[in-house]
């Protein structure tokens, strides 16, 4: 059953969640994306039943077990790892040995069996995260909710964790709701993204829909990456609508790539350089911004290129001009959605 928020309003002090309308399908990986202070955590607390809406309704969560994992994990410091994982089972009608068995099984699944008698303060960040997820998983939740799960991690660990989350989602097949302020994380994980600003959902859609067509300038600015393209990768070549782009990425049937608009060069003639991606196309739109000029060049796919006002004037670019678009392989960020090809152990 899908989760549905219908015109949900909630006032909390000075902050106001306004007319939230969100639909999350069963088994979907939904990412709630927004800057800090935008109301993401309050929204998931509404979904988890920790807050009641002032008006509007939330359906699809009644009687469901939710596993909410907060940022910083909120492991109870006065209990050890075992007691933390077993915590939710205390309130169910289970014998001691049944609880022990379940804790052993789930801790094996998360590779924390050797930590069961440790104090929480002795754990590393990664161990804490696994313990927190194990504590939620032991209750077999129908809905997993993660609040900024990677914000405390460094870049490499972040990417590893994302891949673990993808695998975990695939294995459980449950509905995942994931809160983040990091759009790269959103693209690499989400089936669907909801963007929240200042207590309002400003856009929902697949990563493709959102990045192709941001609902507002605020959304576009927040996303930063203007050129997000959906396609597939084979032998280091990304293909979308017949346009082939050289990338650094493994084979995958579903991939998003992103190129920053200021990482792309515009030229009248083809540039002889080390950059491997060069396409000729026609200027379809020109937007003058305070920061510079955005030129849309259609090379089979529309590319948004940001140049300075001076370059724009010097090159006397007009709609219909034919220009070369050039960028390096290293300026292409690759967000693979495939778990099977990536993960050697599966």
């Amino acid at each position, binding site marked *: 059953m899908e989760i549905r928020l219908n015109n949900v309003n909630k006032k909390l002090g000075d902050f106001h969640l306004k007319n939230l309308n969100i639909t999350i399908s069963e088994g979907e990986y939904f990412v709630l994306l927004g800057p800090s202070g935008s109301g993401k955590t309050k929204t998931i*607390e509404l979904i*988890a*039943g*920790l807050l009641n809406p002032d008006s509007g309704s939330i359906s699809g969560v009644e009687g469901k*077990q*939710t*596993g*909410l994992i*907060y940022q*910083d994990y*909120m492991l*109870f*410091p*006065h209990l050890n790892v075992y007691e933390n994982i077993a*915590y*939710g089972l*205390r*309130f*169910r009608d289970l014998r001691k040995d049944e609880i022990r068995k379940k804790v052993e099984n789930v801790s094996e699944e998360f590779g924390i069996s050797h930590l069961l008698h440790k104090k929480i303060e002795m754990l590393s960040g990664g161990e804490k995260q696994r313990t927190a997820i194990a*504590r*939620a998983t032991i*209750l077999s939740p129908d809905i997993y909710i993660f609040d900024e799960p990677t914000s405390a991690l460094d870049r490499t660990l972040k990417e590893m964790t994302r891949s673990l989350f993808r695998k975990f989602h695939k294995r459980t097949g449950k509905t995942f709701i994931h809160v983040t302020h990091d759009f790269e994380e959103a693209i690499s994980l989400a089936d669907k993204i909801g963007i929240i600003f200042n207590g309002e959902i400003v856009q929902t859609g697949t990563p493709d829909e959102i990045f192709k067509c941001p609902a507002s300038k605020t959304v576009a600015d927040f996303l930063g990456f203007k050129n997000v393209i959906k396609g597939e990768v084979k032998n280091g070549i990304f293909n979308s609508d017949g346009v082939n782009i050289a990338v650094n990425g493994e084979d995958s049937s579903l991939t998003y790539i992103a190129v920053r608009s200021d990482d792309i060069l515009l030229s009248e003639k083809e540039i002889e350089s080390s950059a491997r991606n060069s396409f000729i196309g026609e200027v379809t739109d020109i937007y003058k911004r305070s920061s510079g000029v955005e030129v849309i060049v259609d090379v089979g796919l529309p590319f948004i290129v940001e140049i300075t006002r001076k370059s724009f004037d010097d090159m006397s670019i007009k709609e219909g001009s034919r220009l070369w678009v050039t960028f390096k392989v290293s300026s292409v960020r690759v967000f693979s959605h495939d778990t099977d090809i990536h993960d050697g152990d599966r």
Partner: protein
Amino acid sequence: MKLRHLFFLPGILLLLFLGYPLIKMMFNVDPSILLDTAKEKEVINSIILTLRASLIATIAALITGIPLAYIFARKEFPGKKILEGLIDIPVIIPHTAVGIALLSAWGRHSFISKSTGLNIVGTEIAISMAMFFVSVPFLINSVKSGFRMIDPRYEKTALTLGASPWQMFYTVSLPMVKKSIISGSIMMWGRGISEFGAVIILAYHPVTAPVLIFERFQNYGLKYALPVTVIMILISLMIFTIIRIYEARK
């Protein structure tokens, strides 16, 4: 001279000011008189009474004060600041005034006494009540700041893991403020033991240790008041040191 050394000097003066009278008193007492005093029934009874009455006050404060501290820490409501200020009043008003206030509320001619026939003046209950009144802020403020320090997300996590609000409270909130509860209780108990002003107005008899010290000083002079004082101080020091060591070990 380093800053550290400069800071030592006033610190040493302060410690001397606190320590000197206590040490002087210890050495002024004849050990044999001290021993004789310690065997006196009146002295033993008054000390036991003092410790017990304050303990009862502390237990009563734990039962009524922890829920209140939790409400103060977690809930916002109109008039909260005023109520929190009310809790602190006993710390700032003279304790004899507290005794007078309690006497007018609970004494022989009070409404409560007249309507119920209850007369608490001169009973151990009255002593506990006086101690409770003047020392409960120490417990409530300590537990309140303990609860404030707990991230509410711990409690919310407990709720999503299936705990009822009550189960959440006693499996998460309460254990997490254990330290504050213990230190607040010690502070309150200690403060209760030392209470004189409010107690003497509400109950001269049965005689608590601070009243006994005062009585002996009034009737027989410094020399007779000293041994009881020293014994009281030694016993208090012993108890609190034991509790602190026990706490530090855990």
